[in-house]
């Protein structure tokens, strides 16, 4: 019975977003057997998220970048790229992916692994951030574009970085009035991204499209502003907004109140690297790219032989970067199998896309002062209900490492395993916002799965 749940492919790919799909399409075109595992119900990942089958399309036009998404999805269909949806990869070893799908425990045996695991939202705790109606920008996209849910009537969009604009556009398309869009970075800091935008035709078109979409939505982007607190009886009813200085420190006294019933907070992304960590892949810290990332060589290879990483897992960069890296990883695998050279243009493309993305990210790198928004009773770990004061007490008594704070107050030990609080916990608890935070330890399962999935995990066949 166990044998039936063991699958085989030359290449196993985790993630059907732009990076994973681009790699898969290229590998299938080259005649290699591929299997893509993805947690979502449809291919495309977060950025090219598709509406559920049968749902009415959102009114209005799509941003130009989504054309690339349609092209990629069409290519995946044309080449019949096999994708297992609803598949949660929970354990990994070189050439082995254990996953749960529809309550069943499976093993994929392969010779090469591509990690295209994407990123998750960076959360910045502020008073009231756990009120119903306050979500991450990513969650709003899932609600509107993944499930066709209209989250409310009057929305405030806050955060930092290029993801604010799609959030405004999506809410406007869904018929939600966006009463304000607040970018925490100053206009002058953001100007640093300008050369990268102006010198890249695709990014220029994209920026122009979003500038027009703001106009259509009647929203003016306010630079150097953010949310200080959300208030409401049982759910968000008001947001307190205010100005921040160049480091993100709140300027008390600048507060204003807005009546809203939805707040989308998008303070950037954090690379999802757990599977790479479980494999023993080397990591590096890159603050503008979102923090701890998987280290890759010039062919997207990680420090573990046969394991490649593409897209946000090796540092946040966006869909264009992910697709370029996916194609390069595919070429590297084909080259390894067939002993053929890699087209140098693929590497040049990755470098160019990364340069442009990095310029953008540096202009919107996380602002340390935003950690001063939280007050003593603000929850820093919403899984374990840990307020900031308790996390601070834990750091003071147990020590200031991430591990010390966790064992001192249980923050980061709940169902999300630190995905929500992990990026800010140490800075908040120690009050030191400018030091490199510890790398969280990855433990099996990479994502929560049923106990029975672990008990029933198929053994790798002896011959494989």
């Amino acid at each position: 019975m166990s044998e039936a749940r063991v699958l085989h492919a030359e290449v196993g790919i985790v993630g059907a977003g732009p990076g994973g799909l681009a790699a898969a399409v290229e590998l299938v075109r080259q005649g290699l057997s591929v299997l893509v595992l993805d947690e979502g119900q449809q291919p495309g990942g977060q950025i090219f998220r598709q509406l559920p089958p049968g749902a009415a399309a959102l009114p209005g036009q799509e941003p130009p970048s989504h054309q690339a998404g349609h092209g990629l999805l069409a290519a995946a269909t044309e080449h019949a790229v096999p994708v297992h949806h609803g598949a949660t990869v929970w354990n990994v070893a070189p050439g082995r992916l254990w996953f749960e799908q529809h309550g069943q425990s499976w093993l994929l045996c392969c010779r090469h692994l591509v990690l295209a695991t994407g990123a998750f939202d960076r959360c910045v705790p502020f008073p009231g951030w756990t009120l119903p109606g306050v979500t991450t920008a990513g969650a709003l996209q899932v609600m509107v574009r993944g499930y066709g849910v209209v989250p409310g009537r009057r929305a405030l969009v806050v955060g930092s970085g290029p993801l604010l604009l799609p959030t405004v556009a999506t809410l406007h398309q869904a018929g939600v009035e966006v009463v304000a869009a607040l970018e925490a970075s100053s206009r002058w800091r953001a100007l640093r991204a300008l050369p990268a935008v102006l010198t890249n035709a695709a990014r220029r078109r994209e920026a122009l499209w979003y500038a027009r979409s703001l106009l259509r939505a009647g929203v003016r982007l306010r630079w150097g502003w953010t949310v200080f607190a959300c208030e409401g009886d049982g759910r968000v009813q008001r947001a307190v907004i205010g100005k921040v200085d160049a480091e993100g420190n709140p300027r008390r006294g600048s507060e204003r109140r807005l009546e809203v019933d939805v707040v989308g907070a998008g303070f950037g992304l954090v690379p999802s690297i757990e599977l790479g960590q479980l494999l023993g892949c080397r990591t590096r810290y890159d603050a503008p790219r979102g923090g701890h990332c998987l280290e890759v060589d010039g062919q997207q290879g990680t420090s573990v032989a046969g394991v490649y990483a593409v897209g946000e897992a090796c540092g946040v960069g966006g869909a264009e970067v992910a697709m370029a890296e996916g194609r390069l990883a595919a070429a590297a695998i084909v080259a390894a199998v067939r002993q053929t050279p890699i087209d140098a243009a693929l590497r040049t493309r990755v470098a160019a896309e990364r340069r442009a993305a990095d310029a953008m990210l540096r202009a919107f790198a996380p602002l340390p002062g935003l950690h001063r928004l939280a007050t003593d009773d603000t929850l820093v770990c919403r899984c374990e209900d840990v307020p900031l004061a308790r996390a601070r007490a834990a750091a003071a008594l147990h020590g200031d490492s991430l591990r010390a704070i966790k064992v001192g107050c249980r923050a980061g030990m709940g169902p999300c395993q630190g995905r929500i609080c992990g990026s800010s916990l140490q800075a908040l608890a120690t009050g030191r916002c400018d030091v490199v935070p510890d790398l969280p330890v990855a433990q099996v399962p990479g994502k929560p799965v049923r106990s029975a999935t672990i008990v029933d995990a198929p053994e790798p066949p002896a011959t494989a």
Partner: protein
Amino acid sequence: MVETAEVVVVGGGIIGCAVTWQLANLLPAGTRIVLLDRGPIAGGTSGSCMGHLMVTPDDAREYAFTHESVRLWRELQEQQGGFDYNPTGALYLADTDEDAAMFPVLQQQFGACGDHADVLDRKQLRELEPGLAADLPGALFYPGDGVVLPMLACGAMLRAARQANPNVVVRPFTAVVGVDCDARGVSAVRTTPATIATRAVVNCCGVYAPELQRTLGGPPLPIVPRAGNLAITGHHVSPVRTQLLEISYLRFAHGAAKVDPTRTDDPGGHAVNMQPQSHGGCLIGSTRQFRGMDRTLNPALLRRSLQRAQRYAPGLAAAPIVRTWVGLRPYSLDKHPLIGPWPAVPGLWVAAGHEGLGISLAPITGRLLAEMFTGRPTTIDATAWLPARFGA
């Protein structure tokens, strides 16, 4: 100015915290007590173990030892709280008639100690724990056991210590580089930032206790790590509300190891232990394997222990497991902890080697050590746990 301390406690796990707490209670207020750990407080075994407060009725001595400790835990709860103390009692489970035959035996042992436990039939068991498998042949319920969250309990003990004595100093991330001795014995502890002049050091380093002891010469400390694989579910899914363990646990875990603890090819074994958590999760252990300091997961042992847990609580099969990990128990070669002076080095004390009972026994260990340290008569006869038995 030279830093001085009456006593330096090395090791900020549950034993070091308990020793600090009890020393603070018994030494005059104002006495300088320093607790050091090279990592976080509760960052080692106490941050990766279960929290079963277990009363064991093997004989009158063991019973007094464990029972008094659990009483001290209740005192800490009343005084401090904040560590998820939950007096659930313990259910001993069996799924074979042979094991079920042990229920009355264990019941008699509790009786002989002047305590009591109840043998439950199938129906009574279902009433107490409806989430357990319907075909189980009953259970033994002992009401005196409980559950704590050890890592938070470390903090509670240190808060209690500081309330008793404001001169308690807690220093995480401070490694001991060496212990200096003169003709009178211990004279100073050299740490990474500073040297502390002191006439007393307590080694509470658990699985690392031999490492500290080696720097001082003399016979080696007879403690080896015994690994356990653990798994924890998400919130609000625990099918059980009581601390549960297989009665075979007593045979397997509580008795002396059947294998040579220094061998490296120990296949390991398990007797499942399931512990309800304060957020409605369930913590599942407990496997045992000697394999040095290796803390990588043993998937086969973990699977077997989850399988046993599912056999007793079928609802667990669908519960999400959010994390698995390995903890190392400090196993002493004669299966009893070492509590007291280390005669080979005057001024050196040891409190270590509790294997799987470190959480249960932490308060009494701290109490006994503090009593010996201050020259008081001990609450219970502690001769059996004196480190001198190992020829120091």
